[in-house]
């Protein structure tokens, strides 16, 4: 009797434990997407290539703060720290468009990213402000903003030439290499926008500040990049309070972690 009644009782407990284990596993899964280290990629999985672009450099110092902090130095420091985190936590390969105080032209940055076969491109700036007091971060993706091309997906050169008696879109004149170069970003409108939103979300969480939002603008560098690409403007150095924050290594670490988490989230969504 006892044995007869203990059999179903033990089986019920077994099921209960199994259900709890499965539930806990499912609950823990999202935590992995929220910044925990991902498991190493499988051997057959291609290692993702993340291109980080520290803005400015060399004689192109960019913005400067009241106490002398320079935009070119902050962008390099933040990109380097984010690169380390992405490599360590996500196992991705990171390429920096500059690793020292050199002025790399925009087209050379785009070419480096394209030739490396990058999977993601994140350009980092600490831009200016008309009033000197705007401090919130902003994320941007490419959008042409021209007529009949709300998403910027219509080839701009062909459109412009067509209006001026040049080659028509469906005409016999072949597009020049310059036109193709200008269209590099057009296939990545949706994925770039998604990456910009993930960057915005993760930075808000990490630096505990309200960002200005996600915007599409005709940013020349992004136009030339043939992969999902965004530009992060971490804030204006001209604001004295924000300059003090940027001098704090802990703040930069959190911002770098926000960038790494955005890359993590993007990869998780692409799987």
């Amino acid at each position, binding site marked *: 009797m006892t044995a007869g009644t203990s059999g179903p009782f033990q089986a019920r407990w077994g099921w209960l434990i199994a259900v709890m284990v499965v539930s806990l596993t499912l609950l823990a899964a999202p935590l992995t997407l929220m910044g925990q280290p991902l498991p190493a990629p499988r051997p057959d999985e291609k290692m993702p290539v993340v291109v980080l672009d520290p803005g400015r450099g060399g004689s192109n110092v960019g913005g400067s703060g009241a106490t002398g902090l320079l935009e070119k130095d902050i962008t390099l420091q933040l990109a380097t720290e984010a690169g380390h985190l992405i490599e360590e936590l996500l196992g991705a390969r990171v390429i920096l468009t500059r690793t020292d105080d050199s002025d790399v032209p925009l087209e050379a940055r785009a070419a480096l990213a394209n030739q490396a076969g990058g999977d993601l491109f994140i350009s980092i700036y600490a*831009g200016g402000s008309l009033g000197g007091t705007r401090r919130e971060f902003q994320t941007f993706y490419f959008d042409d903003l021209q007529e009949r091309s709300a998403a910027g997906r219509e080839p701009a050169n062909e459109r*412009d030439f067509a209006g001026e008696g040049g080659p028509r879109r469906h005409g016999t004149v072949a597009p020049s290499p310059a036109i193709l170069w200008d269209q590099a970003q057009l296939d990545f409108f949706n994925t770039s926008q998604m990456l910009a939103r993930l960057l915005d979300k993760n930075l808000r969480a990490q630096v505990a500040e309200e960002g200005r939002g996600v915007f599409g603008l005709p*940013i020349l560098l992004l136009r030339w990049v043939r992969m999902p690409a965004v530009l992060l403007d971490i804030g204006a150095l001209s604001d004295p309070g924000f300059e003090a924050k940027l001098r704090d290594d802990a703040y930069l670490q959190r911002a770098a972690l926000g960038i790494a988490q955005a890359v993590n989230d993007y990869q998780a969504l692409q799987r």
Partner: protein
Amino acid sequence: MRGRRRIKQVGAKSEAGAWGWIVSGILLVLIAGALWWLLGLPGTGRTSVDTNERGGNIPPGEELSLWFASRQEDALVLERRRVAPSQTPFDRVRASLQELIVGPKGDALRTVSAEAKIREVFIDDQGTAYIDFSEALSRTHPGGPWAEMLTLRSIMQTLVANVPEIKRVQLLIEGREVETLAGHMDIRRPLDATWSINQR
């Protein structure tokens, strides 16, 4: 003697009556003039302050719509300003841009550097305005994609608002086409009138 006195008295009465008529006439003219000025007679066009200024020999001028950045840098704000009248669309373009260079009078932020100069202005028959600025426009710009966007939109919106002939704007720096305004925004081709903030 009695008759002479009578004649004198009659003369004094008629003289006083004449003066009364003159004063009454002047008063009537003044009142009519005042009413005419206050009410505005049909056909005179005296219905606005501007026309009144014209009557007072004050240069009439023309009103420009100028777009500057809001204090929060999240939008453009309109400021209306009267300037000397322009003879041609070219003059009106120059006047509009010059007022942007002068900067806002109200609680707004300037979008174009005070050091910038307008070198040349040209409008082709397709409605594309070519605006040639001095290099100070780029050199003294605070930079950043957002600030560049506000500057371009301020220029674009101001020109389109004040010069109906303009459909597109091509910016030049020191006579040449340039890739970006201050490192970010693509200005190699003309910006069209629909160019605007695209927030999603």
